[in-house]
């Protein structure tokens, strides 16, 4: 298959922000996750837990509460005192409304979904009516009256349960009148709301119990503690055939090292997230009907989108952080070696540029041009384009001013291979094509979305010859545009699962599409049909181990000299697919890192297959071919992330 020099990069100092809230939507089987920097992510649990949408964060908008209401409308509230509604189609914020109660600590929708309740810093509870396109303030509750509300959660409500001052971090009101509270003393307590008496108390942790979520059937709930433990409580019969039931602590799970700030309870799984930045989805075995790979534990740490772009010509890497960009130049070596060797560096990697954003908003996307002389990035309301000049070791940076008014926010930015064109996907479904000239630009064309759709395009791919542009949204099919004639060329048939990566092969103009269910399709743009190889893959089916991988493919690229090769990677492996070899069937060994020895031809005939997989680099955030013989791999070891997190609650190690 070949020998490569691999630039193994670990200086991408990315730390995912901690998880603050998780909210599960039963209707669409989606999960909304908000992080400490205000980012909100939407995971589609039916599509292999793919992170299909995200809303960039904002420095002043610390989200404290997240909830779904009226079916699939998503609201958040935070410490800036505003309630936000998100537009899940256009991927922007619909509106922000000040609640005039100071920082908001909690929010919940009424069971019918028509009202929204918030708990504010000043101690007031406010009720909002949800109208079809907005929310409307309805009334204010004093503390005494708040018991009239059937089900609510209010943080920071003080109760004098023990001698120490104890903070109740969360409560749940069940329809039978039981109130469950979790508090900073490590207790889960059951109260009778009619008499106000304590029914039962479970001491489950030495530290705070910070979160609680109840299943819709109210027969089970989950709590998360500051020690990183998640406990499952279930309502079970006292004896095998009696109708009397009681709450029993059934299962403890320890998947987190830090505070579990938020938990959610889907019909089949416990979902938890916290300071250690992992989102953990733990299926309940008794609720999972088929014991297949869906029943496995999922731990999601990295975003399912690319944060890194690469200039092949100049060997540059552009790293995207929440509020700044870093540009690095890779080092070089003149040595050669054999498999596994680390070569001596003749030049180390250079940190060329640290570009801070202006304003409080997070960066949505960024890109460096293949020639290395343009950098573009976008926040939620501004678009920036910079021209880089290299003079020996000096770099000068010049911002291209006077961006047109329509270019205020982009979901995805892409430069053409020859760096003369810039493609920008904006969040109303428009695709702008911009001609880049020395130091300036010219707006060439805007592809308007198909009539009636406002779905934002999040993935772009351009063919190396610059003639074709492919764009994909979160649910509809992939659109292919002819850049020369500036018109829509065709639409690849929609598939059930969202697209996770797109790329167009050189020369053949085959569009390779990876979906979140791990399927890979190859579509011939000139012929407007799937290629023979792709049909073959569908007919035979992919190897079961391939389908069982649990991170999506985030990047696809091609070998410039070998048209039969497709290079793709997820967080735990990269793979070169050689289309000329037979596909592996379920009996063949998919992952075979060992070199073939001098074995009989029969054996070779049976083991050689199209998927050449390497799992050396992980977690792998980016991998691309710089030239025929050089790869660049960006890793982010989990230990380095943990080292940057605040220390977890100390636990006694000896004498327990």
């Amino acid at each position, binding site marked *: 298959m070949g020998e490569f020099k691999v630039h193994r990069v670990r200086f991408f100092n990315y730390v995912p922000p901690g998880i603050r809230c998780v909210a599960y939507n039963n209707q669409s089987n989606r999960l909304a996750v908000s992080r400490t920097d205000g980012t909100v992510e939407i995971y589609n649990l039916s599509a292999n837990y793919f992170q299909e949408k995200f809303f960039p964060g904002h420095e002043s908008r610390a989200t404290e509460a997240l909830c779904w209401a009226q079916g699939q409308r998503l609201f958040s509230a935070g410490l800036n005192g505003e309630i936000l509604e998100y537009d899940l189609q256009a991927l922007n914020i619909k509106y922000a409304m000040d609640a005039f109660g100071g920082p908001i600590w909690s929010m919940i929708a009424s069971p019918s979904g028509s009202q929204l309740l918030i708990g504010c810093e000043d101690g007031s509870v406010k009720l909002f009516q949800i109208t079809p396109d907005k929310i409307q303030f309805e009334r204010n509750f004093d503390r005494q009256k708040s018991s009239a509300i059937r089900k609510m959660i209010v943080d920071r409500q003080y109760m004098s349960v023990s001698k120490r001052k104890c903070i109740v971090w969360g409560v749940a009101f069940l329809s039978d009148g039981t109130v469950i509270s979790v508090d900073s003393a490590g207790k889960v307590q059951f109260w009778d709301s009619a008499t106000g008496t304590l029914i039962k108390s479970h001491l489950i942790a030495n530290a705070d119990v910070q979160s609680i979520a109840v299943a819709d059937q109210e027969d089970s709930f989950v709590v998360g503690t500051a020690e990183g433990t998640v406990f499952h409580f279930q309502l079970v019969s006292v004896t095998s055939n009696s109708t009397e039931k009681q709450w029993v602590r059934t299962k403890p799970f320890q998947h987190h090292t830090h505070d579990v700030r938020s938990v959610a309870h889907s019909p089949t799984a416990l979902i938890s997230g916290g300071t250690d930045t992992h989102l953990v989805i733990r299926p309940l075995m008794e609720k999972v009907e088929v014991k297949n790979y869906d029943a496995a534990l999922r731990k999601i740490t990295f975003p399912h989108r690319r944060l890194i772009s690469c200039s092949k010509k100049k060997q540059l890497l552009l790293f995207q952080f929440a509020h700044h960009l870093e540009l690095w130049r890779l*080092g070089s070596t003149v040595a050669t070696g054999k498999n596994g060797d680390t070569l001596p560096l003749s030049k180390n990697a250079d940190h060329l540029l640290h570009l801070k954003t202006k304003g409080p908003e997070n960066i949505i996307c960024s890109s460096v041009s293949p020639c290395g002389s343009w950098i573009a990035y976008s926040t939620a309301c501004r678009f920036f384009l910079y021209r880089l000049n290299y003079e020996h070791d000096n770099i000068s940076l010049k911002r291209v001013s006077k961006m047109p008014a329509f270019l205020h926010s982009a979901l995805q930015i892409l430069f053409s291979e020859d760096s003369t064109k810039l493609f920008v996907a904006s969040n109303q479904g428009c695709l702008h094509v911009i001609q880049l000239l020395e130091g300036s630009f010219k707006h060439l064309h805007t592809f308007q979305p198909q009539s009636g759709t406002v779905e934002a395009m999040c993935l772009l791919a351009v063919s190396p010859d610059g003639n074709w542009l492919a764009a994909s949204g979160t649910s509809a099919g992939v659109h292919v545009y002819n850049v020369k004639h500036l018109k829509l060329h065709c639409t690849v048939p929609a598939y059930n699962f969202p697209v996770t990566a797109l790329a167009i092969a050189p020369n053949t103009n085959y569009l390779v599409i990876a979906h979140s269910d791990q399927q890979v399709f190859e579509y011939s743009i000139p012929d407007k049909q799937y290629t023979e190889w792709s049909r073959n893959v569908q007919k035979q089916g992919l190897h079961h181990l391939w389908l069982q991988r649990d991170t999506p493919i985030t990047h696809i690229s091609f070998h410039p000299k070998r048209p039969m090769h497709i290079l793709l990677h997820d967080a735990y492996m990269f793979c070169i697919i050689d289309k000329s070899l037979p596909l592996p069937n379920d009996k063949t060994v998919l992952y075979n890192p060992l070199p073939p020895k001098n074995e009989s031809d029969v054996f070779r005939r049976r083991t050689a297959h199209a998927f050449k997989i390497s799992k050396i680099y992980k977690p792998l955030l980016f991998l691309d071919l710089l030239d025929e013989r050089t790869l660049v791999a960006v890793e982010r070891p989990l230990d380095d992330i943990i080292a940057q997190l605040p220390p977890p609650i100390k636990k006694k190690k000896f004498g327990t």
Partner: protein
Amino acid sequence: MAALEEEFTLSAVTLGARPDGLLGVEESDKTDHFLVTDRSRTVILYKVSDQKPLGSWSVKQGQIITCPAVCNFQTGEHIVVHDNKVLRIWNHEDVNLDKVFKATLSAEVHRVHSIQGTEPVVLFKSGAARGLEALLAEPQQKIETVLSDGEVIKWTKFFVVYRHPVLVFITEKDGNHFAYVQMFNSRNLSKYTLLLGQEDNSVTLSFTAYVDRKFIFLMSLSSDGCIYETLIPIYPSDTEKNQRLVRSLLLKAVVSGIPPNGVTLTILDQDHVAVLGPPRPSSKECLSIWNIKFQTLQTSKELPQGTSGQLWYYGEHLFMLHGKCLTVVPCKCGVSSLAGALGKLKHTQDPGTQTMPHHVNWEISPGCGPGSQNSVQLRRTLRRKKNEVSLQPEVAVSEAAVSEQLLSTIKNGSEKHIEVELRKFLAKWTPDSHTAVGDIITGLLERSKAEPSFYPRNCLIQLVQTHVLSYSLCPGLMDTALEKTDVQMLQLCLQQFPDIPESVTCACLKLFLSIGDDSLQGININMESVFDYSNTEQEEKMEEQPEILRNGFNPEDSNCKETASCPVMRKRAALLNAVLHAAYSETFLLPHLKDIPAQDITLFLQYLYFLYLKCSENATMTLPGKHPPTLSQIMDWICLLLDANFTVVLMIPEAKRLLINLYKFVKSQISVYSELNKIEVSFRELQKLNQEKNSRGLYSIEVLELF
């Protein structure tokens, strides 16, 4: 319960189905995929649940396929033979059969057989058989002739019996039938003559078979409408060639009248067969499912368009040619029960849902899988005993019979006699017959109760060592052993039984502590859990460096020399360890512990303290030896004993010293742990330094070769 579901058609037109039917339907390597070979030139791969063909391959005009295509489960390739001698192997992606791997063989092939778990086997018309790999290595190798002149292969089947591939085929010559069993591991070919009874003018029309571990159960459908069963031993008992096998009647009047295409019999599972043929003279052809265990007709389906007289059954699907269409009838056989056979079983499930067995067969433990159907087999063997006696008398004596025999011996036989019978029983014993073992033990104990002098110790020990007994299965056993102060038996029971009540555990402990040293002397006790405590090597080592604290154990503090010797003899230690290992619940154990005399409590505490000290001597906090008590077991028992008898222990002067030592030792350990907790941060830093040494830098260029 067996049920036929709604049939569906796989294809009507693509098959060039001629009245003489198909060549074969075979499983492919994916579930739900089947290879259909027609009688001329085509092989089609169907996905049955989708009712659509996935691939179709044809040989050239002028060539003709002579044996149904099969799948090589080891490689996923397909194999077919055309023009009797030309073997083709192809992959799913291959389009043209002309361009795929080809091997021309030196003899005519009768069939290629392939099943999961073994390599395919090629059976030649001459009766010789070869593994595929061996054949492909040298395609032109000479094939010997096994069959005599004029002998024709009528029916073949390929099994795997305990990983050994077995090929069985039936031949016919001048109206006589012969069965051949070819073992591939031993390359052993046995020939049997099938005697087809007195009903002379009947012709055998169809065969089917299944295997268990010793026999091939060959069923044949005869032209008189009856199904007969013949048992063919897989492993030939003697070297005498040409043995004769008789058949026995299994079912009567299954079909009547022979349609032009013949009738077919296919076994579905051990209790069900499917028969294709007219049930009454001049009636239309019918597919019927019979329960052979209870001899009842389970269900049937009329096939008005006629069939080709062929029937295949794979994984709950029956395949047949109905009219001109290849038809699939899903067919499910539940566990055979009398209620099910009589149609009295409540059928609560929707037909669409996945079936669960209606009856829990308590004799088959879940997870034992197919190997555990011996209980069914057991009854079956009994019923069939008569037929077998003529064949192999020693096999026919089943374990059930032995156990019956044994039970009757127990009632009045001498101890010696019982032992002999027991040995016979244990030779035939399988883990499923634990109830039989329980019955035998109960019988022995009953007699022992009636006759105080009767105590068949050896027998009881042998039975306990079968590892299938529990306390609840033979409640009297431990009581009797306690009565007879049989400590060896008690130790064995404590080790084996998972469910001993706390009162009995405590009674054992009491006995173990109070029994005299001299009476222990002559008894054979399992010493596995006891380390040789008299070994002083470790102590010497410690005395060399007395300043070092080992896990807080300060020899000067706790008078090491006094306590370092084991307070009990080794045999007693082994017995006490058995108690330490036993499962218990504190609440139930505590009241019983109070009944133990104070002297014994002190002794036991001394022993536990000794073990605790020994534990603390090494870093892992474990005792040496093969199966020693764990630290937590020791600590739990110390706490329990002190809880139960604290006031008593306080009063005894000799226990005072022990308590003080124990207190000091625990205190020193606590202080060590608190010191450890203080320096934990330093440890972590050390660990971090270690990790940093291992981790690479932030940037490197490496060489990677992909294969």
